[in-house]
């Protein structure tokens, strides 16, 4: 007994046995694969189908009631199977030129594909270039595994991408036969608690449903329990983060959400079969549908009215299944699919594509990292939130902002990544909308939160407080900040102005010091405490919470390191402006510890009010560790020992410079003088010579002798002077060099 179905084959209705139809379908499919890279593939398939249809027609004309297995077998044998073509095809077209060589290559390899052996990129199972699909086909494993391995390599060392691109370029592409027995991961809508993720995983790994459920649920339950306990013992009413962000439980919660989004629901009968890993063909689909139908019946009895909906759903499912089959068949027989042999020309395009994807990937990754950083920063600031946020609504908004505005893009990105990895192409449209919607809500929450926080800083108040101090006897005031006994090191999250922070108080060192001229002859110290608030009353109340003191011992004033905000007090730009009035003629020294341990900061615009009449030009910036003296014109540095020495040194330098300049001039002068003297002496000598040349007169002999002696006396003198001035010149030069 065999079932006969009617098929539309090449425009004709043909009655055919179901098994014969399966055979025919398989045959056509095998041909399609064989000729996959052939230029005129569709035409060839069409021709062959046409011929088969003709043979069917002949068979029916001869009196056959339907096409049987035998008929199909006979026809297939006469047409030849792809395995049979192989030998015949390989060398047929050697004469048709270079183009044919490619056919030859492709066709010889085509047969081997089905028999496994060569590595290709899989055209049928691809996300980017089909490299993973091809590898999976070659290794006969699930493509998802290969993809995960690639993803892992990429994230570990980054070489995965390069390897992928390399393989993309090297490997030829062709549609490969999928592994028909592969199970796919679906969500199971029949057995579900939330979305059927756990039961889908269970049927994928062939384990009992409760195992994955427990894995998902246990940390969640644990989280709830611990948060309850915590709430009971510490009165910490903060259950929201306790459950969701209870480390492990939170992770699994996110994993479940992501899987929910990523894994498609097994809707149609064939998908349900794939989920269970059963072979998908018409008979098994039928059985499944029947099972479903029975299940529906029993449920219908149970729930009565729901039956209608379920039946409708079923009808849709069945319609979908049939529609899919029809589409599949249509795709097989139709000529819509166009696959050119774009091997060589495609390489450049592929390179561009790869480059683009690479860049896009980097951008996406950077975005993800940024968002994660924001998340982490948000969590880092988290302990501070109690000091910033007021009331339930702000807390709620803060959480909404953190989760939706920052968290949703992260989840969306991970979802997208996993979907790509799993090879789910047709995205759920609503998923995107949901993400966008949630993100938008987060954005709005963030806006409202920001507004409401800013509003909390609306009003600002300040209060003056004067400290009484004993006038220092030395005429010099030293200002210091003591070392704190407890030091906190290694806090990665650092914010100016916050010294330390624990559960119930925030310690701020938001203190500024300024020095002004005293109106009388005494030192005065007073402070302005100030704070913002929603309104003036709140601001004043905040001011009264600030406790800032100074201590004095002799001429040293110790300033508090800061002030603490108690739990319940909010951070509203609290700060202390300390003013020291120094009388004219008195000195002040501000220790280095002051500038090191006090820190001025404020959020927002700060305080731009007028600082009264005292806020005058006298308020010069001071540097720590420098002694100042107050003069009628303002603060002036007191010359320290170093200063004096420095000045002295500078003076010395200047003097030396001047000295050397003098020396040069002196030298020049003396040289000129020497020259003049030399010339003068020469002239004298010439005069003497003239005298000498005069006619000899015995009476004058004595005189002559005397002059000669005189000459002998003078000459050595000149020589001597010449000799002495050489080292003199050298020493001058040396000095000049030293100067310049």
């Amino acid at each position, binding site marked *: 007994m065999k079932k006969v179905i009617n098929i539309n084959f090449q425009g004709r209705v043909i009655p055919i046995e179901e098994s014969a139809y399966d055979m025919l379908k398989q045959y056509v499919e095998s*041909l399609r694969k064989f000729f996959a890279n052939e230029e005129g593939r569709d035409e060839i398939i069409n*021709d062959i189908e046409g011929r088969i249809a003709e043979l069917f027609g002949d068979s029916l004309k001869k009196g056959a009631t339907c096409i049987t297995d035998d008929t199909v077998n006979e026809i297939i044998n006469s047409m030849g199977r792809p395995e049979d073509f192989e030998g015949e*095809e390989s060398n047929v077209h050697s004469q048709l030129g270079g183009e044919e060589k490619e056919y030859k290559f492709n066709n010889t390899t085509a047969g081997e594909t089905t028999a496994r052996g060569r590595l290709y990129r899989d055209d049928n199972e691809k996300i980017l270039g089909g490299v993973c699909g091809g590898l999976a086909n070659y290794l006969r494993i699930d493509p998802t595994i290969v993809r995960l391995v690639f993803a892992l390599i990429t994230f570990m060392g980054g070489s995965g991408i390069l390897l992928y691109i390399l393989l993309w370029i090297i490997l030829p592409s062709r549609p490969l036969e999928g592994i028909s027995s592969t199970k796919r991961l679906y969500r199971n809508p029949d057995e579900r608690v939330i979305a059927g993720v756990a039961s889908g995983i269970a049927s994928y790994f062939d384990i009992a449903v409760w195992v994955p459920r427990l894995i998902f649920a246990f940390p969640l339950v644990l989280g709830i329990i611990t948060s309850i306990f915590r709430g009971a013992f510490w009165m910490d009413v903060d259950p929201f983060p306790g459950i969701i962000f209870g480390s492990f439980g939170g992770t699994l919660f996110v994993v479940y959400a992501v899987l929910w989004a990523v894994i498609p629901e097994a809707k149609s009968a064939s998908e349900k079969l794939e989920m269970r890993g059963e072979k998908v063909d018409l008979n098994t689909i039928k059985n499944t549908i029947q099972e479903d139908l029975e299940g529906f019946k029993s449920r219908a009895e149970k729930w009565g009215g729901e039956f209608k909906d379920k039946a409708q759903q079923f009808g849709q499912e069945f319609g979908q299944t049939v529609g899919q089959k029809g589409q599949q068949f249509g795709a097989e027989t139709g000529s819509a699919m166009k696959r050119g042999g774009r091997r060589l020309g495609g390489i450049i395009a592929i390179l561009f594509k790869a480059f683009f994807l690479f860049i896009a990937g980097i951008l996406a990754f950077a975005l993800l990292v940024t968002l994660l950083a924001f998340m982490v920063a948000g969590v880092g600031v988290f302990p501070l939130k109690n000091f910033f946020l007021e009331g339930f609504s702000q807390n709620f908004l803060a959480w909404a902002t953190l989760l939706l505005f920052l968290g949703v893009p992260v989840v969306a990105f991970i979802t997208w990544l996993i979907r790509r990895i799993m090879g789910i192409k047709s995205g759920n449209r609503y998923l995107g909308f949901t993400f966008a919607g949630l993100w938008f809500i987060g954005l709005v929450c963030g806006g409202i939160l920001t507004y409401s926080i800013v509003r909390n800083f609306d009003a600002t108040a300040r209060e003056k407080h004067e400290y009484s101090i004993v006038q220092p006897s030395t005429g010099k005031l030293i200002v210091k900040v003591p070392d704190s006994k407890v030091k906190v090191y290694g806090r990665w999250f650092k914010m100016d102005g916050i010294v330390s922070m624990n559960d119930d108080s925030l310690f701020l060192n938001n203190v500024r010091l300024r020095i002004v001229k005293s109106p009388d002859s005494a030192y005065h110290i007073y402070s302005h405490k100030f704070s913002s608030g929603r309104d003036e009353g709140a601001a004043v109340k905040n001011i009264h919470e600030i406790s800032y003191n100074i201590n004095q011992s002799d001429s040293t004033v110790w300033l508090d390191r800061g002030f603490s905000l108690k739990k319940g007090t909010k951070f509203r730009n609290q700060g202390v402006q300390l003013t020291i009035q120094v009388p004219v003629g008195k000195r002040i020294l501000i220790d280095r510890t002051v500038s090191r341990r006090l820190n001025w900061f404020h959020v927002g615009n700060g305080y731009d009010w007028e600082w009264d009449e005292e806020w005058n030009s006298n308020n010069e910036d001071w540097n720590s560790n420098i002694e100042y003296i107050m003069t009628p014109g303002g603060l002036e540095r007191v010359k320290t020992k170093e200063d004096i020495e420095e000045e002295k040194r500078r003076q010395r330098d200047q003097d030396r410079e001047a000295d050397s300049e003098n020396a040069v001039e002196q030298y020049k002068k003396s040289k000129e003088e020497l020259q003049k003297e030399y010339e003068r002496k020469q002239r004298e000598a010439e005069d003497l010579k003239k005298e000498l040349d005069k006619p000899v007169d015995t009476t004058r002999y004595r005189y002559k002798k005397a002059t000669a002696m005189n000459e002998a006396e003078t000459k050595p003198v000149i020589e001597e002077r010449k000799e002495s001035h050489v080292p003199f010149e050298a020493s001058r030069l040396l000095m000049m060099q030293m100067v310049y």
Partner: protein
Amino acid sequence: MDIQNTQSQMRKGVLEFCILSIIRQGEVYPSDIVDRMKAANLHILEGTLYPLLTRLKNAGLLTYRWVESNSGPPRKYFVMTDKGLEFYNELERTWQELADAVQALTQPPVTSVHEETPTQP
């Protein structure tokens, strides 16, 4: 060395030439080609013929026209183009040369025959 492989290689070499020679004689339907080749004791799978014809057609050597059929979908009848005829003539010359060469080589060498004759008594 597989004898069957060698045989099929030899057949394959002339397959195209044979098909073209059949088409040259007039408009023809693919299954007729198979029949005629079968009659000449040269077997070919129909499944191999279709891709071959498509390629020849795409190379511009053949063209076809649709003919209505009463036993199935419209049939494609193939006919040779001028370019195909040229191609065929080229092939024929090659074949003739090849046949002559094979003939010459497979015949017992004439010289050796001459050498042997004197020794015969």
